[in-house]
């Protein structure tokens, strides 16, 4: 069961990632990336990382990708016609080669298992356990994160709003 799920999710993730890289239209690429995020969230669930799985969807698929989508729509780039066909072939070949070779490696390597799962306690990956670490051991990074976010807001506002102020 778990194996099946793993294969579905990982194959889905790899496939949509490939599609993302090869796609010409940025919007479709973004949609594919969202799919990748989704499958990754599935993998996180398999790894008992419940909170991270939910956050993966909320933060990556729901927030960051929305930002991407907005920028794509905002800039509304008209695709260059010349670039597309030739480049697409190269990218497709490149990624297929990588994926193929790595899959062979996977088939070989997965037989060897250097690390077996230790007994996982039931609280693993729950909100509480993550939180407990975050708000005690990682207190400083946590507080610094707020500065990071503040910097991001200020920086982005300055960058994005500058021209408006100039023109007004």
């Amino acid at each position, binding site marked *: 069961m778990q194996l099946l799920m793993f294969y579905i999710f990982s194959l889905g993730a790899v496939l949509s990632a490939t599609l993302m890289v090869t796609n010409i239209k940025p919007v479709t690429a973004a949609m594919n990336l969202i799919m990748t995020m989704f499958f990754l969230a599935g993998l996180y*669930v398999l790894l008992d990382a419940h909170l991270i799985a939910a956050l993966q969807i909320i933060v990556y698929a729901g927030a960051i990708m929305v930002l991407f989508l907005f920028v794509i729509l905002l800039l509304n780039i008209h695709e260059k016609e010349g670039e597309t066909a030739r480049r697409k072939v190269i990218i497709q070949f490149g990624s297929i080669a990588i994926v193929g070779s790595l899959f062979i490696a996977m088939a070989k390597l997965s037989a060897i298992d250097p690390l077996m799962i230790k007994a996982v306690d039931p609280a693993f990956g729950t909100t509480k356990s993550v939180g407990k670490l975050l708000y005690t051991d990682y207190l400083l990074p946590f507080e610094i994160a707020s500065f990071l976010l503040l910097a991001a807001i200020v920086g982005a506002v300055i960058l994005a*709003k500058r021209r408006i102020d100039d023109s007004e």
Partner: protein
Amino acid sequence: MNEYIPVLIMLLLASATSIGMIVATTLIGPKKKFAEKMQPFECGENPIVSPKLRFSVKFYLFALFFVIFDIEAVFLYPWAVLFKELGMFGFVEMMVFLTILAIGLIYVWKRGALEWE
């Protein structure tokens, strides 16, 4: 992990329902295509510009605030769950965090980025 299996089943069922609906409506309905029908509707007039144009950067700004505050909320969830255990320490800790972000909010507010105009 087991508790996610029903979610998966539900997701599959829901997708099947949606896809089934889309397929059904594509197959069943009558089809009549001609140039004028395929034009986008614009109150009975011919469209003047294509909507594929750049829209205001304001929308981007809102999406950006959304991302930042979403992350903030994400930090708050584990904290809120743990709040009763963390006690005063956690409260102070989070208030520092929130204050710093509130500064950001105040900054964008004062900067007028939250104004629609």
